[in-house]
């Protein structure tokens, strides 16, 4: 039924190099603003690279499929990627969060490549379900990809729309969960110790679901393929590490929000990890 094709020159090695580049750019830009939400941006690097370079199809030089960054606080990663694709111009990215700049810490609908305004958690699933239903009405084979955070699974609105997506048989909706296990206040397993395992809950809502290593594009791609042959909406739990690639940031809740100091930045760049599939 669904077949996830590699549409551009996607290979796992070049993805690794790109991901290293995104992480470097995230750190560079972190020096221009006091609060970058760098931790959550670093955790979804591989997920976004896979979606944009490995999954979303292109027709006549535009994306045939659509993407929504529901975890809007990590949109710097999306901006950097869109910049790499030539969709967001350098000048626009360079004025990120600056006076008269149009790119801020959360994505605004209408900016190049930005399909929805997000930033308040728990909105992306409803929007994605509506878009997926629109594709059903139009009878098109387009797909909608959405990336949510594990914090968004604490919002009732996410589950309301997950229920609806299953009811409406939205097999064209593919959700990636950036499961980094950490949120503003601390570790999610401490805030919500009884919430796990997530996979059973998603399955109970009649979604097609699998888990993968969220820093391994090959693993994510394979696991997604395994659950693609169904009429249900798809959900890939991507197990990730908040702050991935910068050792002193990894799994430290403080890096949910803050940007590194100049000393920390220099150290981070010097020791930035090259994550292999």
């Amino acid at each position, binding site marked *: 039924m669904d077949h996830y094709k590699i549409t551009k020159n996607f290979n796992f090695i070049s993805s690794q190099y790109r991901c290293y580049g995104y992480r470097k750019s995230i750190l560079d830009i972190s020096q221009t603003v006091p609060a970058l939400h760098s931790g959550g941006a670093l955790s979804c690097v591989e997920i976004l690279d896979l979606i944009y370079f490995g999954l979303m199809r292109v027709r006549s030089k535009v994306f045939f499929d659509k993407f929504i960054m529901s975890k809007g606080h990590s949109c710097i990663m999306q901006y950097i990627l869109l910049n790499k694709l030539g969709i967001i111009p350098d000048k626009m990215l360079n004025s990120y969060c600056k006076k008269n700049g149009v790119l801020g810490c959360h994505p605004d609908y209408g900016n190049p490549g930005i399909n*929805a305004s997000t930033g308040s958690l728990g909105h992306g699933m409803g929007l994605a379900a509506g878009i997926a239903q629109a594709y059903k009405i139009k009878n098109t084979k387009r797909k909608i990809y959405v990336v949510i955070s594990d914090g968004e699974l604490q919002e009732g*609105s996410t589950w*309301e729309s997950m*229920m609806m997506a299953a009811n*409406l048989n939205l097999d064209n909706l593919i959700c990636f969960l950036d499961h980094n296990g950490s949120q503003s206040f601390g570790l999610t397993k401490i805030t919500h110790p009884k919430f796990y395992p997530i996979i059973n809950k998603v399955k109970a809502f009649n979604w097609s679901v699998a888990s993968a290593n969220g820093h391994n594009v090959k693993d994510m791609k394979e696991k997604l393929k395994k659950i693609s042959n169904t009429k249900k909406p798809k959900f890939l739990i991507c197990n990730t590490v908040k702050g991935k690639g910068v050792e002193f940031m990894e799994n430290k809740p403080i890096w949910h929000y803050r940007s590194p100091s100049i000393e920390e930045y220099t150290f981070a760049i010097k020791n930035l990890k090259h994550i292999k599939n």
Partner: protein
Amino acid sequence: MRNNFADVIYEEGLKDDRICVVVADISPAGSIEKFRKKFPKRFINCGVAEQSMIGIAAGLALEGYRPFCYTIATFALYRPFEMIRVDLAYQNLPVTIVGMGAGIIYSTLGSTHHSMEDISVASAIPNMRVFCPSDPLEMKKATRWCATKSKGPVYMRLGKVGEPILTKNSQDNFTIDKIRCIEKGKGNSYAILTYGTSLKLALELSTKMKKDKNCFPHVYTSNSIKPFDNNGIEEILKKFKKVIIIEENVPHGGLTSRVKCINSDTKNRSQILAFTLKDKFIHSYGTYKDILNTHGLSLDKIFKKI
């Protein structure tokens, strides 16, 4: 109004395949059934999930559709408020939220079902339009406008069932966003200004004033609270010595505040006699008329004060 709304939306649905209806467990679903049967993919019942109703409508609008969200006013506006603010208003999407049974019309269901401040709440959101048609005729015109002309979100406040037709022989034609003279009076002593289902009470008051007071007020409706017809109000304030406002909304953030504001800003000296819902929850029950009376909105209570 409910059944008339369903008829209009069905007709518009036939003309334009971008019209969708997204509801949250409306009861009874009877009147909108025709639309569901004819356009099964364009009718989505989210059940008791109002946040999802707004989110899905926004998603449809992002793909070029023109959805109508439809449920009881309190649940249409208050429960998914932040979805309305962010998904619809911030992104400025052409989605119409139809608040059915608005105001305190669901009298015996209690304050959980009374939208006493929906006008104030909805009109506080940037990009949002707020319409309050007064009878089935105005409702049809406003609904058609939303279906064909709106470029952003609209909150439309409607009554329930059985509202009488009151604007058939109006002095002015219906123009969206404009103050409309429904009944022409005599002289320049009194104007009565209202919107929505309160027009009935306004016309009763006018009749009583003619009969018992020998004065002939002019009766106006403001079908749109946002955008507001500032010029139209200014003219009324300049012309009349006393302006009576009847409003089924709390005292702040609705028609009354706006009129008082314009009166003050233009250094006008008309006397404003405002009759609104009280700024409090009512803990007693009874008919719609009984609850209005508890809030001070009865013909006799208003008449005594003017």
